[in-house]
């Protein structure tokens, strides 16, 4: 006989994607887990120096944690670090990109929704970002795979407007319609068409069927990288209905020509909100 009131407790691994302070010394932790989807819980007294969990439940760490389910915020305890991703913690560029990856993973996850492929993708991408010399392409690979896993695979072989097979040439991309548009078939009244050069299209197709290791060694020119960024981000914004907050910082770190220029004069919030 089990009492219905007895709380369920389980141990899971997960990646910490969000933290915020609660009360005097507690911390609310959001994790992405393979089986339980997004898990939000309270780590009691995590900000106190004596805490056994505070050092583990930090952003961008792969941890094991014990979860005690309650009706509202779960209780988190007995945390230990499985992978601290050190390489993402001592480099601003890698940190900013990993933040983008983790925010996107969170936005594409749901509570109590098992998503092992997404979790695996998140872990693989963080591992690659730690060491890669080609972070741009790792990010593009992640964006493409996340769209595919979520059922928003971009249409890359036929024109989404006319249905005809696309000739190997420069074309356009429509995030609204979720794919390439034949350069001749510019739909009336559609302003948000993005340029997609032949090389960019080849890279999009490559990304749609490669693995992360192959993506990590594929180099693209500056123009292609810029087009890939615009196309994949536009598609993600379209799916999510808004931008990601971490984009601003990632772009700022990446475009800083040297590290001795000052922050730009603040003009409102930098958040995509």
């Amino acid at each position, binding site marked *: 006989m089990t009492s219905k009131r007895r709380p369920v407790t389980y141990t899971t691994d997960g990646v910490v994607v969000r933290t915020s302070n609660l009360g005097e010394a507690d911390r609310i932790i959001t994790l992405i887990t393979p089986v339980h989807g997004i898990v939000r819980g309270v780590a009691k007294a995590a900000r106190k120096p004596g805490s056994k969990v505070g*050092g583990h439940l930090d952003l961008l760490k792969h941890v094991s944690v014990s979860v005690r389910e309650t009706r509202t915020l779960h209780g988190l305890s007995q945390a230990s670090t499985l992978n601290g991703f050190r390489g993402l913690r001592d480099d601003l560029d890698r940190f900013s990109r990993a933040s983008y990856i983790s925010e996107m993973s969170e936005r594409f996850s749901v509570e109590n929704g098992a998503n092992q492929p997404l979790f695996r993708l998140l872990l693989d991408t963080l591992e690659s970002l730690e060491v890669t010399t080609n972070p741009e392409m790792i990010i593009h690979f992640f964006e493409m795979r996340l769209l595919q896993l979520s059922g928003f695979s971009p249409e890359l072989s036929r024109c989404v407007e006319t249905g005809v097979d696309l000739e190997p040439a420069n074309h356009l991309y429509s995030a609204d319609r979720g794919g390439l548009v034949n350069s001749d078939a510019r739909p009336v009244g559609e302003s948000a068409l993005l340029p997609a050069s032949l090389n960019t299209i080849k890279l999009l197709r490559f990304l749609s069927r490669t693995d992360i290791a192959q993506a990590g060694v594929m180099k693209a020119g500056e123009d292609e990288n810029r087009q890939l960024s615009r196309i994949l981000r536009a598609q993600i914004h379209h799916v999510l209905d808004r931008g990601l907050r971490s984009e601003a910082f990632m772009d700022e770190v990446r475009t800083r020509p040297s*590290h001795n220029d000052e*922050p730009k004069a603040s003009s409102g919030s930098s958040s995509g909100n």
Partner: protein
Amino acid sequence: MAPSEIAPSAAPPVARLIEAFHRLPGIGPKSAQRLTYHLIRMPQEEAEEFSAAILGIKEKVVLCNTCANIAESEECAICGDLQRDGTRICVVEEPLDVVAVERARVYSGKYHVLHGVISPVNGIGPNDLKLRELLERLRDGSVTEVIVATNPNLEGEATAMYIQQLIGPLGVKVTRLARGLPSGSDIEYADDSTLAHALESRAEIPQRQSDSPE
């Protein structure tokens, strides 16, 4: 409305105060109730003094023009203290961290309060912190060391790295509190001797890397 959830049986004015206490950091429903019933028994003049004190901090407290710490006027007591060492600035996240570092009694320089840390997933970037004000203070060359005392967690470390890259090239030494503060804990709660030791054995942040404690 919410009061019914926390104090379902209390009279509306009582429930309203319980609810107000409950919104404060660190106050659970039980404490909120206890504080409210304590105030009910409080003499009239004491209660008036209490509410005037609350209104007073909203009307009279401002941020120091120089260091952004909480102050009574345009200049805080620390910035106005000529005895303090003006060649060093200790950068902290929040005003409460100034209190913590002061408590350790080993630091006699000035402060700078960022009012936050870089937090990409929350959309908080460098421009949302008091960083331009910090740069402004370094312009005349009198400051030789900036000690970054942000919390020992990822966002605190990233902010320290950013500050190093921002002001290191100006020829100002940028140091970070030594390891020893448990990672994940807040400086606000560090005990005085640990914080004193971390301050005394602070180390320069290397150019591309930060010493993120594990």
